[in-house]
């Protein structure tokens, strides 16, 4: 008889001790149910524009099925450099300052692994994207949270950074427009943060994947700020701007020595991003502007619809200036964000993500993605209204037993 292997003992404790994503449980719950309207999706509801898909099919017909250079297709890097120069006046040499990655996810992992030695601290805003903290831990670093809240528009400030810096602090990770809050950051704030970063000799990783989805004001590209180009690693991709999540293609731009070090890991672990995805990204950059604008316009309209709906429901909601998320507060229901999301799903079949999945600071909120059709949004809000009415109804009975309310009409009784 062979002895059974206890894998828990063999798994690297660093990996073993990483908690599973808070989103996972909701995913399992929601997938089992039928008729769910989902506002829980972190990707565009548009399919990749046809001209991009068509260009990819053509590239396959032409036999583009091989490896590319580790850096990625030169033509794509040139197109990215052009886009950055035209949009933000940040100039990168496509020869040695841009690396094509398998989405921003790989870019982030590469950057962290290239930078961090055991015990190094990385400052990250909270709430923030679910991958940041685990990736830092896996790279041997320690995440330190900059607690943002609705009071300061979920923006990191120079003061927060200054307070959190220790001799072990090496990196400041920024992500604006932000997932899950939809917050953007003001240029003034960024300028002040840049000053601290320079004074404290911090490297900044700026994840700007939602950059094109900015609805209020203009996006500030971090490396475009004075003194920041050389100490910033810019991460971006095509997933959100061109509805290309499944293609897995992004890029990192920065100092050539640093990019060369990142490339070392990339070449031994990934070799290169898939050529088909790179060809598609090239088409997106070359000819995708007008379709992208149309998508952004639609998100912008839905954003207003969502804000209006939350106002009507009586859920306080911070006005998101970017991305495609709203992050309303649900505290007044007396439920934790996880309870709220679970009960909402079970009772009225609307999927949202509990704010706590994005860190402690997300507690008391839910993330609602408006990357959904207007019909779906309206249906979801109709159901949420019913759910809230029941909650608030119960609340009155429980808490306000001394409050005299008029007789409840019969029809209303049933829904309570």
């Amino acid at each position, binding site marked *: 008889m062979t002895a059974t292997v206890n894998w828990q003992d063999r798994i690297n404790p660093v990996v073993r001790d990483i908690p599973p*994503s808070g*989103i996972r449980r*909701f*995913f399992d719950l*929601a*997938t089992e149910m039928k008729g*769910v309207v*989902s506002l*829980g*999706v*972190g*990707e565009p*509801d548009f*399919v990749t524009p046809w001209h991009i898909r068509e260009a990819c099919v053509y590239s396959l017909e032409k036999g583009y099925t091989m490896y590319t250079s580790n850096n990625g297709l030169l033509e794509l890097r040139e197109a990215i450099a052009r886009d950055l120069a035209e949009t933000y006046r940040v100039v990168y040499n496509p020869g040695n300052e841009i690396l094509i990655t398998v989405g921003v996810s790989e870019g982030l992992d590469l950057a962290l692994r290239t930078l961090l030695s055991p015990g190094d601290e990385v400052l990250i805003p909270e709430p923030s*994207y*679910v*991958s940041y903290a685990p990736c830092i831990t896996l790279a041997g670093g320690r995440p330190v949270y900059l607690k943002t809240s609705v009071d300061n528009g979920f923006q990191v400030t120079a003061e927060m950074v200054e307070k959190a810096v220790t001799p072990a602090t090496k990196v400041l990770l920024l992500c604006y427009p932000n*997932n899950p809050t939809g917050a953007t950051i003001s240029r003034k704030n960024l300028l002040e943060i840049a000053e601290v970063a320079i004074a404290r000799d911090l490297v900044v990783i700026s994840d700007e994947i939602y950059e094109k989805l900015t609805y209020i004001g203009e996006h500030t590209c971090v490396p475009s700020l004075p003194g920041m180009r050389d100490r910033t690693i810019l991460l971006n991709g095509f997933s959100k701007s061109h509805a290309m999540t499944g293609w897995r293609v992004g890029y990192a731009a920065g100092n050539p020595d640093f990019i060369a070090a990142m490339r070392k890991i990339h070449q031994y672990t990934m070799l290169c991003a898939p050529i088909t995805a790179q060809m598609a990204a090239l088409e997106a950059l070359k000819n995708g502007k007008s379709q992208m604008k149309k998508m952004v316009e639609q998100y912008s*309209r*839905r954003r*207003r*619809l969502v804000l*209006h709906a939350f106002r009507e429901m009586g859920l306080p909601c911070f006005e998101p200036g970017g991305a495609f998320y709203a992050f309303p507060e649900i505290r007044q229901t007396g439920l934790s964000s996880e309870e709220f999301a679970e009960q909402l799903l079970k009772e009225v079949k609307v*999927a949202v*993500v509990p704010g706590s*999945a994005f860190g402690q600071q997300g507690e008391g909120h839910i993330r609602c993605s408006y990357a959904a059709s*207007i019909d779906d949004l309206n249906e979801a809000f109709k159901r949420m209204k019913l759910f809230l009415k029941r909650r608030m109804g119960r609340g009155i009975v429980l808490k306000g037993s001394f409050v005299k309310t008029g007789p409840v009409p019969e029809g209303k009784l049933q829904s309570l």
Partner: protein
Amino acid sequence: MKEILELLQTDARLTPGQIAVLLDRDEEEVACKIKEMEENKIILGYFTLINWDKVGEEMVSAIIEVKLSPQREVGFDSVAERIYRFPEVGSVRLMSGAYDLAVMINGRTMKEVAHFVSHKLATIENVISTCTHFVLKTYKYHGTILEDNESDRRLVVTP
């Protein structure tokens, strides 16, 4: 104004209230603008896009290329009018290239369309020739794919 039109073009059922929310405007202002555009004939009507094939109704459509000899002073306009006044004519457009008018016609049967072309259209003065193309299948109409199999294939919850 353009934004209101774009919204109505994709969904004519949108109320001024809904449009106002989507565009962050005042409801009354939107309602006034729409009324104004209706009066100015910028908005000519509100239609429903129907896939008649699915209704099981027998219907035939044809595109007819019409060559004309233009008339002094009015050019093609008066002949065009004599054609577009027929209710069975769906659209009439003046074209560049090998022929002059592209006439879209809808009828119940092929015979009915043939009768219209030979008895009504071809006999109009200044019509030199006609060339009729019957429509076999419509894939896309008014920017809408008739049988779109592309659905939302995303996972229900993702980070």
